């Protein structure tokens, strides 16, 4: 395995964990949602490297795309949804 | 192991009546004697020896014009039936076919349970007298009697175990051949327990709260008068003797002749009289406890050690 791949993988890992950290720590729900979408997005990149283009596409479209939109749809309807 | 059972024949009836007659008279005289002795101990003069006969005749002659109903009659009837029955189901004179009465009908157990018979009837009858205090007397009497019977039952059972029979005749037979063969010496615990029970059932102090003339002006017997009373007086003469005969047979070697019987009965009776003049009266729960604490353990000891 080339060093490049490992480096990329490590970077992605750090990014994902960082985003996940933001997700569970963010002050605002909206931030958390965005960060979760980001985790998904990074994951789909990771899938590409894991030779899983189908999964990558799906994760990108559904996991980070649609799901995040759904979140915001609902968030918009529960008065800001700030922590209470 | 049993001796051949004596069988019924018609001659037993007159002989039985004779037994009843003898015992009845002896009982009357002795009751008076005891009363006299007790009075003398208390530095009183006491009744004439024939006073009981006078009372009895007088009472039999009296007629009552009121009744509390049939159940009321049952008191004396049960009582006297119990007394006579007990006497007749026990062989009076050892070795005498004539005076073995109706002992073929049942054994020691019958005698043991027949002791109850009179009490039950008395309780029934007195309860019907319409007097609340008679009921109180009954509850006390029954309570005390049940506690007093327990050591007796234990002693009886110890004796039965000791001789491995329930036949009174066999038990007496086993005690023949010298004073030391008496249960009194072969099984002293049983006799001690039985004698304590005996004290309790003689309606004398300290166990006479049932009749309790002081606290309760009208105990159960006092509701009875005239012929009822006469019948009960008859029983009061007869029943203790019948009971003592049982004791004598079981614990004191029985009696082979009437004089021996008279003597032994008198002596046993005197135990109760002696205790009676010495001790004050117990309350019922006290006497129950007394029996349970003192007499019952002796009985248990007797049963266990046999």
């Amino acid at each position: 395995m080339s060093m490049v791949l490992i480096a990329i993988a490590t970077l992605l890992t750090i990014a994902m964990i960082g985003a996940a950290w933001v997700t569970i720590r963010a002050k605002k729900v909206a931030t958390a949602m965005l960060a979760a979408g980001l985790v998904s997005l990074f994951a789909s990149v990771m899938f590409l490297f894991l030779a899983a283009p189908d999964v990558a596409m799906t994760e990108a479209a559904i996991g980070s795309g649609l799901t995040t939109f759904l979140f915001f749809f609902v968030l918009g309807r529960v008065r800001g949804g700030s922590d209470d | 192991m049993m001796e051949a059972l004596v069988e019924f024949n018609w001659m037993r009836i007159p002989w039985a009546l004779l037994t009843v007659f003898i015992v009845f008279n002896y009982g009357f005289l002795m009751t008076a004697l005891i009363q006299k002795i007790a009075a003398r101990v208390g530095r009183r003069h006491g009744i004439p020896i024939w006073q009981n006969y006078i009372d009895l005749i007088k009472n039999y002659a009296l007629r009552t014009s009121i009744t509390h109903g049939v159940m009321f009659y049952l008191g004396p009837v049960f009582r006297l039936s119990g007394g006579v029955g007990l006497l007749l189901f026990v062989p009076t004179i050892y070795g005498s076919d004539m005076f073995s009465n109706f002992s073929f009908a049942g054994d020691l157990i019958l005698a043991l349970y027949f002791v109850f018979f009179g009490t039950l009837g008395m309780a029934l009858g007195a309860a019907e007298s319409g007097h609340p205090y008679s009921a109180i007397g009954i509850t006390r009497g029954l309570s005390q009697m049940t506690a007093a019977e327990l050591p007796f039952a234990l002693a009886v059972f110890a004796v039965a175990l000791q001789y491995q029979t329930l036949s009174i005749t066999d038990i007496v037979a086993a005690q023949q051949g010298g004073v030391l063969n008496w249960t009194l010496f072969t099984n002293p615990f049983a006799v001690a327990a039985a004698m304590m029970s005996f004290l309790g059932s003689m309606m004398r102090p300290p166990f006479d709260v049932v009749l309790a003339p002081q606290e309760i002006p009208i105990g159960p017997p006092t509701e009875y008068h005239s012929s009822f009373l006469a019948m009960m007086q008859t029983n009061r003469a007869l029943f203790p003797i019948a009971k003592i005969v049982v004791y004598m047979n079981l614990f004191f070697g029985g009696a082979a002749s009437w004089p021996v019987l008279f003597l032994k009965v008198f002596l046993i009776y005197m135990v109760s009289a002696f205790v009676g003049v010495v001790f004050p009266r117990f309350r019922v729960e006290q006497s129950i406890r007394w029996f349970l604490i003192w007499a019952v353990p002796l009985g248990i000891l007797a049963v266990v050690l046999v």
Partner: protein
Amino acid sequence: MDWIAMATGFILILMGLYGALTERNILRIIVSFTVANTGVNLVLVAVGYMHGRTAPILDKTVPVAEAVARIIDPVPQALVLTAIVIGLGVTAMMLTYAYKLYEEKGTLDVSKCRDLKW
């Protein structure tokens, strides 16, 4: 690569679950669960990964005859696809319920939703 992905996946699961089990806001709980789900997907795919092989798609570069030696295990990928879609379904359901809860109770706090207990 697969190790890293798998470890990352596990960490994401744990982080997601921590969020899901400690947050009170139901929206945050749902968000945390999606993170955990992403982690699961990562683990699943990582299990199927094999060094030096390519995606299980046969074309000119990977002829049928060489497939056995050239492609990675396609099964986990198929499973992940299904899992992702199901995850979306569940997430959507939960969001709807959250919305409904808010409509009825005016709060998003799950700990306030305790009419049923014991």
